[in-house]
């Protein structure tokens, strides 16, 4: 279970387990977390539970609340977040999320009450794209840096930085190859066309080939040099 730990000058003064849907924070005595500091508003901030998330909201300081050093009006709390409240620190600790890997299993939950067929109006009128939930938890994977230099063909002399998951070169009819960026290196694989790619003069058939720095790859009329940098 997630909890909040309030401390000042290195000493813990309060702890709060997140078992309520709403936790209020402020100087007023009625708040769940009372912060006795003149710099803090009577009703300073709130944390509300939605599903597995706890959402911090600024209740009117205007400028926002510093979380991990950055001012924010609203934030989905992440394990280890530190909320600055004058001379106090409020730390958010989520033991479940503290493991590197999110093993959260799919669960069924009742939806929020809304007429799902009616998209809410927005100022821009653009609804569908704005509401698109982006993929990706931020991945922690590190990818190597590579590029190819065309030695021959229509792009002769040009470079292409391999900054996407894949890059293709060649042509579908004469021979198309894909270079794949993976955590442990770059691979070249045959996609389609008459000819299989060659690495340093040797055909690679249909299997992926791990590229080494300065390998020469040929496919169709194109000839490129692979470089790590």
């Amino acid at each position: 279970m997630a909890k909040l730990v309030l401390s000042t000058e290195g000493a813990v003064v309060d702890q709060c387990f997140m078992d309520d849907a709403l936790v209020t924070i402020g100087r007023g005595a009625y708040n769940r977390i009372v912060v006795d500091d003149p710099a803090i508003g009577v009703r300073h901030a709130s944390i509300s539970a939605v599903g597995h998330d706890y959402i911090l909201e600024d209740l009117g300081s205007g400028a926002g609340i510093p979380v991990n050093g950055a001012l924010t009006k609203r934030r989905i709390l992440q394990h280890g977040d530190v909320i600055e409240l004058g001379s106090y620190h409020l730390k958010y600790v989520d033991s479940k999320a503290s493991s590197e890997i999110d093993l959260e299993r799919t669960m069924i939950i009742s939806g929020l009450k809304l007429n799902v067929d009616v998209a809410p109006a927005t100022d821009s009128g653009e609804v569908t794209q704005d509401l698109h939930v982006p993929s990706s938890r931020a991945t922690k994977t590190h990818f190597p840096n590579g590029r190819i230099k065309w030695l021959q063909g229509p792009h002769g002399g040009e470079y292409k930085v391999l900054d996407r998951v894949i890059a293709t070169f060649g042509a579908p009819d004469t021979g198309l190859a894909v270079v794949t960026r993976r955590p442990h290196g770059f691979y070249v694989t045959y996609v389609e066309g008459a000819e299989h790619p060659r690495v340093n003069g040797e055909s690679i058939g249909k299997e992926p080939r791990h590229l080494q720095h300065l390998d020469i790859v040929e496919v169709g009329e194109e000839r490129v040099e692979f470089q790590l940098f």
Partner: protein
Amino acid sequence: MAVDFLEIAALTDVGNVRQYNEDSIAVDTVHGIVALADGMGGHRAGEVASRMATDALVTGLTAAAARFGADPRQHAPLLALGQSINRANRAIHEAGRLDVRYRGMGTTMAAAVFHDNRIAMAHVGDSRIYRVRDERISLLTRDDSLLRDQVELGVISAAEASQSHNRSLVTRALGIEARVTAHITDEPAVPGDVYLLCSDGLNDLVEDADIELIIASLSGNLSLAASHLVQTAKDNGGYDNVSVILAKVREPFPASGRGWIARIRAWFARLFGAGR
């Protein structure tokens, strides 16, 4: 014999972390039917639920597809999807009610039927259907998920959603209740289109832009595209099971172009210059 207007590649993978694969995929290349499910429930019940779903969907849709030729209604595939989903839901719900090991099991699903130059689609939960047309990706389904509801209500912004822990909370699934309402729709499918059905193990870990790039670049080798999608999800963490079904439309597939009576009728129509 497989339909020749459609090329299909399907792949499912347990991922890097999970012990079991609770996703199921099923394909009927004879009738142009694809189905995918992502199960949930303890003690491997998720595997049972997703397998029951894909089996029931493909069995039901295959039986219905044999009758599409005699059924001129354009919405026949939509009706078939609805009926197959209801049957799958009842079967999973019953199994969960009767067997304590399966109590509370459920599954998301996505399925598609290619018929008469159209794709009929259905989904429940957060399994998705995308289309790549002219190298641009479009999401054709709307997740039944808390996160999606939150964004729609403006509780959080789309940008904030990537910080959320609510990804795995679905608001609708097969087998949970005695009845389920699926999202069922159809639209024209044209040659060159590539449709992707996937479990959230793909789109949670691979950006839409990367899915688009992989499918657009590798559509000439559909099984390589499928393995690249799965591999990318695993390279990005592979926390979940990951499943993909790719279906590429090779040529137009009017219903009248199938069956010898229809073909002769079309031939006569052309001969006499009449419209069909």
